[in-house]
């Protein structure tokens, strides 16, 4: 199964979506991210992998400033992330994020989960927000669940709601932090299908995931991290068939070996 067989990769424009230069981050004394340089162009789909604790989550959480970096520069869609809260607000309303544990709001219905941010952050009228929400719920194929509460849905359905919730803000960039690792195998597929569809529509995506099939199907680039550093970057085909660094060879033999 190769990416070419599945879908022709949408054209990548050349315009920069995310630009990270010389970025460092510490937790107290612990140097989690070291000199990260990364440029993501619009429409690009990047998969980030690496052993546990290598800083993958921290890296993508820096991109919408759920974590603060201490040195270097992060520019998201032309806006630099600094302590300026206006910039932070702007970036967050343009970057969607999907979490490992969904983090849906349990006290709100699926529809309310999807309309909350458009209404209060984008100040969209309720009617319009609901229309958008239904549109995206159709897209993730669960429009019939709109009036249920998250607790009444299966894990896969919840994760698709979480994706729809992010899409309702019409983000330019989507971040995924291990979106399928809390799911049972049969649910993984439905979430991955949704993500593949999203990729075909040309969304700029950064995914932390260990789903190698997904990486091969849609990613333009795989980034391998270890000990807070980017160790290897390559096209998925090259990376999986012909890893260059020792660390990535070891890592691949471990996850593919089972």
């Amino acid at each position: 199964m190769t990416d070419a067989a599945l879908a022709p990769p949408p054209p990548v424009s050349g315009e920069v979506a995310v630009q990270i230069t010389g970025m460092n981050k510490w937790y107290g004394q612990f140097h989690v991210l070291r000199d990260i340089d990364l440029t993501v162009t619009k429409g690009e789909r990047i998969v980030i992998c690496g052993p546990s604790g290598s800083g993958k989550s921290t890296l993508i959480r820096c991109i919408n400033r759920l974590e603060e970096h201490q040195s270097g520069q992060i520019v998201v869609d032309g806006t630099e992330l600094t302590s300026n809260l206006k910039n932070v607000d702007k970036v967050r309303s343009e970057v969607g994020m999907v979490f490992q544990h969904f983090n849906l709001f349990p006290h709100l219905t699926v529809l309310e989960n999807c309309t909350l941010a458009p209404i209060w952050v984008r100040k969209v009228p309720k009617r319009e927000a609901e229309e958008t929400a239904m549109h995206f719920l159709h897209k993730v194929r669960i429009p019939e669940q709109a009036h249920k509460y998250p607790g009444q849905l299966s894990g896969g359905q919840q994760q698709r709601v979480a994706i729809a919730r992010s899409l309702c803000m019409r983000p330019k960039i989507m971040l995924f932090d291990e979106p399928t690792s809390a799911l049972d195998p049969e649910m993984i597929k439905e979430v991955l299908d949704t993500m593949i569809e999203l990729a075909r529509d040309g969304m700029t995506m950064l995914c932390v995931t260990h789903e190698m099939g997904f990486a091969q199907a849609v990613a333009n680039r795989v980034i391998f991290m270890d000990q807070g550093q980017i160790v290897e970057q390559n096209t998925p085909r090259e990376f999986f068939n012909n890893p260059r660094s020792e660390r990535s060879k070891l890592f691949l033999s471990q996850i593919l070996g089972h």
Partner: protein
Amino acid sequence: MSEIHAETVAFARDTMMPPAPPPRRETGAVRWMRENLFSGPLNIILTILAAWLLWLALRDLLPWAWRGIWQAGSASECRAIRDQLYGEGVPAACWAVVRARWRQLLFGFYPADGLWRPLLALGLFLVAVLPVLFSGAPRRLLWLSAAAPFVIVWLLWGGSLWGPVAAALGFVVGWAIWAAVARRGNAGLALLLGLGAALAWWFLLARPVAAGLASVAPLALVPVESRAFGGFTLSLVIGLAGICLSLPLGVLLALARRSELFFISKVAVAYIEVIRGVPLIVWLLVAQVVLNYFLPRGTNFDILLRVIIMVTLFSSAYIAEVIRGGLAALPSGQYEAADALGLGYWQATRLIVLPQALKISIPGIVNSFIGLFKDTTLVSIISLFDPMRISSTIRATTEWGGIYWELYVFVALVFFAFCFAMSRYSIWLERRLERSHR
């Protein structure tokens, strides 16, 4: 041999076995008693001990209560009837005192023809908290909940209807202006303007508007002074007002205590610890004798109002701790998701955090209320007429002098009924929350 062996290895059942009842043993009362009361030496000792304790407790109490005399005009009459019925000096309760004075115990000195007012107020309150306490209730009742406090104040203290209405309008004005400005974007400015408008309304316009409305449509109830409040009415007024008013303050304190801002959280911690470190009696003393020192010269308001203010400040510290527990129970993913969607602090707090945290906190809030309701008996010490003090006043009258136990038993029973019901509710709610969190 080998054939049998072969058979046991390959086996397929062709007929299913029907379920059979377990082997019979003793049934009925004897078995129950053996299992639950006499299943071993320790258990037998415990049973005997319990029976003995029960006997000790009830030996005198039950006959005394059972013989109780319900029809009498005074304690001496009671005694005369008792001597006649059971013989000289036989212990018998004189329930006649409860029959004669129940109204005072329940309503204090509230005007006799206005007793429907506190009752209606209580009913209104119960309907108003329905949507909060039971999630199944219709949402539209929330409007009633918003209006209820003003109507309840009017019902209890009487006077012109337009005073409370004008006060309520202040909130409406403030909210309207806040909403109008917030829609344009600037949240801080909106808050400032809304607050300013509300204050302006209360201090400048409310009184003339109320007076004007009163002259057009003079709707008024006979005013009742705070001094007339007593008995369980007083306990409920103080307890309920205390809990309801302390909720907003408690929420703010809990948020402040969890805040990352050093100074803000330290101030909240200091407030909470100081309030909780000192007994309520001392705070009531403060309300009674010290509070006036800190108010502008000449202000002198109602002791009941002062007590309510003090009790509000007091219970807000306890409520804050309850709500802090609710906030801590919220998974951090909720905060992160709100952040990632671009919600601001107050938006996230209002839309995501508080609705969930408050729901988890309701059992704790109900428990705080039970505690506060019981603590309202302390106001007897600063000479308000709570049920305990009403009992002593009744005992001090010439008719009912020397009556001790009957009044205590009655007061205790009423307290028990209230508090027990509420604690059952809170346990029920806790169970339900636990289930819904799975």
